[in-house]
């Protein structure tokens, strides 16, 4: 057998890089610098700047996109032969795929699913696809009397799949095209969603075009899905277009990790609480500032301290305050060395110091 030497070498290179990186991570002295040392600008300013960034190589990216237009006929051909197109490569492929669909797939209905959106109700999507397919069927045989149709909303998923898979079409060649932007996105990453998408994709009258961005995206599918259901035909189409929508739900690293930010959000929540609750929080915060090395303040001590200042009258009142704090993740509990339950505020000391002046005295 002729083994591909180049391939083997690549494999070797790959594993070598991995171990090198691991070694480097372990052996070299880690830098102890903190994110806060960067001195992040105000979140507001950061977001504004992020929205006003000037894209680089705009012209080259545009001409790259333009160059893919020559492949459109081939893509249509592959779709019609029954393959699902899977686009990958660096850069947002949303604009490219949608441009392809609106120029070359005008004969077919096209439904776009945005996988980067956090929550997607696939049942609703299926209902929409079924409606579109029904419309397409109706338009085909306009002359024949249309049959009474049960509303798709009330049908089960299996029924919908059977409808899209059915032989009702006069010619088998027409189909509804589904575009899934980021099929590996957070909204579709659950195995159930992928299984359902695979079942949709395997219907006779459905073709799928999907884009993936994550390097591990292929792990979402097993062989059955890849070879018999999605029937992927891979296209490497790097666009280098910014991930404008795909990245919306990712936090900006410098915007959220700063202590100022968490102190500010904590202050907002605290301000909506009763003065007594705020004062209990203050007791806890002051204790934490004065005892930086302990695990937290024992609940008994907190009760005693609060009672002393007439903030709570009973353990029940304190507990209700604590529950409220916990719900908003203002405090957390853990056990100290003596096995006592302790409460603590999950904020660094400088954050706490910024927070204290904002609470009512």
């Amino acid at each position, binding site marked *: 057998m002729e083994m591909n030497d180049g391939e083997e070498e690549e494999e070797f290179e790959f594993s070598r890089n991995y171990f090198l990186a691991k070694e480097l991570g372990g052996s070299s002295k880690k830098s102890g610098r903190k994110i806060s040392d960067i001195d992040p*600008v105000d979140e507001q300013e950061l977001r504004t700047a992020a929205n006003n960034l000037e894209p680089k190589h705009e012209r080259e990216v545009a001409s790259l996109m333009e160059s893919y237009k020559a492949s459109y006929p081939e893509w249509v051909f592959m779709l019609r032969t029954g393959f699902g197109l899977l686009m990958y490569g660096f850069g947002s492929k949303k604009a490219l795929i949608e441009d392809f669909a609106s120029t070359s797939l005008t004969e077919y209905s096209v439904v776009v699913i945005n996988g980067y959106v956090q929550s997607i109700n696939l049942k609703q999507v299926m209902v929409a696809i079924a409606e579109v397919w029904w419309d397409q069927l109706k338009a085909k045989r306009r002359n024949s009397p249309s049959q009474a149709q049960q509303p798709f909303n009330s049908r089960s998923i299996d029924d919908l799949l059977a409808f899209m898979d059915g032989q009702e079409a006069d010619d088998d060649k027409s189909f509804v095209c589904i575009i899934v932007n980021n099929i590996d996105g957070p909204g579709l990453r659950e195995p159930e969603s992928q299984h359902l998408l695979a079942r949709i994709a395997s219907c006779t009258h459905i073709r799928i075009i999907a884009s993936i961005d994550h390097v591990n995206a292929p792990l979402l599918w097993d062989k059955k899905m890849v070879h018999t259901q999605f029937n992927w035909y891979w296209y490497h189409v790097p666009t280098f277009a910014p991930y404008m929508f795909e990245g919306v739900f990712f936090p900006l690293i410098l915007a959220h990790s700063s202590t100022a930010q968490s102190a500010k959000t904590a202050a907002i929540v605290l301000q909506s609480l009763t003065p007594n609750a705020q004062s209990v929080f203050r007791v806890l915060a002051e204790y934490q500032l004065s005892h930086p090395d302990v695990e937290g303040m024992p609940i008994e001590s907190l009760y005693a301290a609060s009672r002393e200042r007439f903030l709570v009258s009973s353990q029940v009142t304190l507990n209700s305050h604590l529950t409220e704090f916990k719900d908003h993740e203002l405090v957390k509990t853990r056990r100290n060395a003596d096995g006592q339950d302790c409460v603590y505020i999950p904020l660094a000391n400088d954050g706490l110091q910024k927070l204290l002046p904002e609470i009512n005295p």
Partner: protein
Amino acid sequence: MLLSLVQSLCSSSLSSSSPTFKSKSALPSSKHSETPPSPSSSHKEPKTAVSPFQPRPHPEAITLPFSRLTGSGSIETREVHSAVAFVSARCEWLLDGKQNKGLKLKRKKTESGLVPTHLALGSCHRGGATSGFTVSEFTPAGKLLVPSGSSSKGLHLHCCCCMEPFTILHKASSRKTDKISTGTGKSRTTRRIDLTASLPASTDISDVNAAESNERHYSNMRMEAFEAVWSITESSIKDVLREANATIFSEIHEWVRDSFDTIVSFGVPNFHEATQPFPVVKDATSKKIFTGLVLTRNLEFVDDLMTFEDLKQHLKSQGCHVANLSSVDFSSRNGVGTCLRSLLGQFLTGSLDTADISMLATWYKEQQNNDNPVVIIIDDMERCCASILSEFIHMLSEWVLKVPVILIMGVATTVDAPRNVLPSNALHRLHARKFTFQSLPEKMNYVVETAFLKQSSEFTISHKTAVFMRNYFAHHNGSVTSFIRALKIACAQHFSTQPLCFILHWCLRDEDNEVPQSHTYGLSQERMLKLACDLPSWKSTSNQITQLSGETLLDGLTQLKKLHKTWRMVVLCLYEAIKGENVQLLDLMCEALDPKGPFGSQFDNGSRVLPRDNSMSQKSHSLEKNKSLINRAIRRVKELPANQLLVLMKAWEKHTVDVPELHSEVKALVLSVLKLEEDGESLNQNKVEMTNTRRQALRGNLNAADKNSRVAYEKASNLVDSMVRKYVCPVECVALHEVLCFDSVDKLQAALIGDTRRRIQIDLQEFHAIIRCSCCSKRGSTILPSMPDSSIMYTLAQEHGDVVNVHDWYQSFKSVVLSTHMVSKRGKSRSKQHPPTPKKRKTTNELSEPSEASIQARFCKAIVELQVTGLVRMPNRRRPDYLQRLAFGS
């Protein structure tokens, strides 16, 4: 108050994914759905038509008057403690169509400073204070709308269709697909002009239209040709696999009937008993379920899906009630209810509110022909959740008298598997029998034989492609299904790229005396001849002087067909000779396809029939001789005992039936071997009856037989030698082979195996080669600030270990970005000599030093992009200042 606000926001976020979210909308979408786009006005229809079926904006969404959104006027809106707001309606549609003078804003809130989540604005915002933000510009749908200035609380506006979970991009235009129509919508024409920028400017629009519709028509014809060719291959592969399993299927069916008879012999419940919602109580032996364990002997269960489907059809055709369950139905998450529901769903019609086994019993009793067993096939038993499966088995065994169930379970490893998976009390309920499917190599041989050697479609693949597909099968995938898929991709690519592919369709129709009708496929005859002339294989032949005419093309094609046919036949014969020796047909085929191998190189490229003197090439390849499967086959023919030789020759006789000259030779050989055989038999008889007195006479007989056999073997060896020499002509050595033969192995590989992990990293490293940017291509190993931010960040991360300190990373990023200014200052004097490049423009733009905020924003955005591609992971609580790298070089 604020607490309740946050809570109500949270609750509305939850409701946004539930169906209640889909409430009545203020958008007049019904209007749209009532007026389906007519063909004439289709171009006016906005791209993003509003579907009546998609989630509506929340009823509490604020509607703003249209007039306030024009220009850059400030919009009054209610205050909200949120960071992100999305325009939840289609701006383009609203603004262009002016259907509704309003624009809805749906609020999104960052939840305590973490990931922004969908939060629709709840009623709590009513009566809040007001604050303003301005909308500086409107762009068409799909573009980002940027609020100008640092507006309050950082409101971002996105066009909503990008933020909806799904939208309907457009509905099918009613244009007939396969009709050559003229005068389509204007919008399409303009797009078309965009596509074909090379068209002369004077081209009339109608011409473009005609060209476009012609093109569509021809692509349809090509599609038809593809379908015709591929359907032959596909159906013959399916048939051969089904036939290969026919014996085992009928064996299984026999066992199913026997088992059913046994179950019935325990007693059939009467109607009253059968309709009771509890099982019949009997002794333990009657509770056993007959179970067929089918050893699939396969690495990949994906191949078995097809086999089990065939089995299902087979049993169904014999009258059994068959249901298929897979491991997905037996997942621990959903419990036994799911598989029961799935089971019932396959038998019972109508919607199922509850799933109960008694329903199955009632259904079975109601059946007209309840003298047939219920067969349940579980195709991958080892992947099922053990507890659910055993529960299922318990349940079935209790009911087996009422519903005579017979299980068939696919087992991939060994027959011990159920013992490893199931608890003993479930095992006791099973009465198992073992069956074995065909092994993977056997299946593969059938597929290759059908697809390449026996099929009547002439499509074939080049040597390189065959080697790639063999390696893909052997090292990469190991499944017949994916091999067939690879073949389909190859075929589809051939039809989409090779302009002369329609000749395959012509071959199929067997119109040997007619020149292919190229004009049906959008090619004039001259163009077709020109294309054929330009084929490398034709150019390299001595025929290049003679101009291709219709007749010569026809001759060439007929010759090509004939040679291909004899090649297939000879390979088949050779395979027949070494079939028993555990040889893969694909290996043999690869060898026979090799134009540079010992057998291929004897054919001068394009000389078509005349073999060169092969003594030289044979000598040079003598080393490979031992490994060669073809040589092995030749040797084997020469060494076979007479009776086996006869069997072989008879097989050859069948294979060669289409090639008269060979057929006659084989026939003659069969006769002589037959004679030899008879002689041998009589000799053996004589041996038994041998007496001393007859020895003398026998010796004479022996000598004669010996002579006969020598002659026969000599004939056989001559035949096989001449067959190999004359006919094992790899298709790539024949002129015009490109029309039948697929050769773009790189393309096939790219389509078949997408290597995301490697490719994305290469994209980042070598982006300049992809976007062809002049400024970054000469960078060498230095990091230029003109590179995309993500590329800079990725390259910088290479210097770190598996975790990257954010601070250090930021500092090095910053220094790279700021180095622009040093470069541009230094380069200023030099740039006078150089023509201005895009980079130059950039640097002059950026001469004013970027602000800290913009560098930080670029840093954040680049990290987001690296996160989207999965190259880094956000800091965790344990290491808040470090990012984790997830991919380590390509």
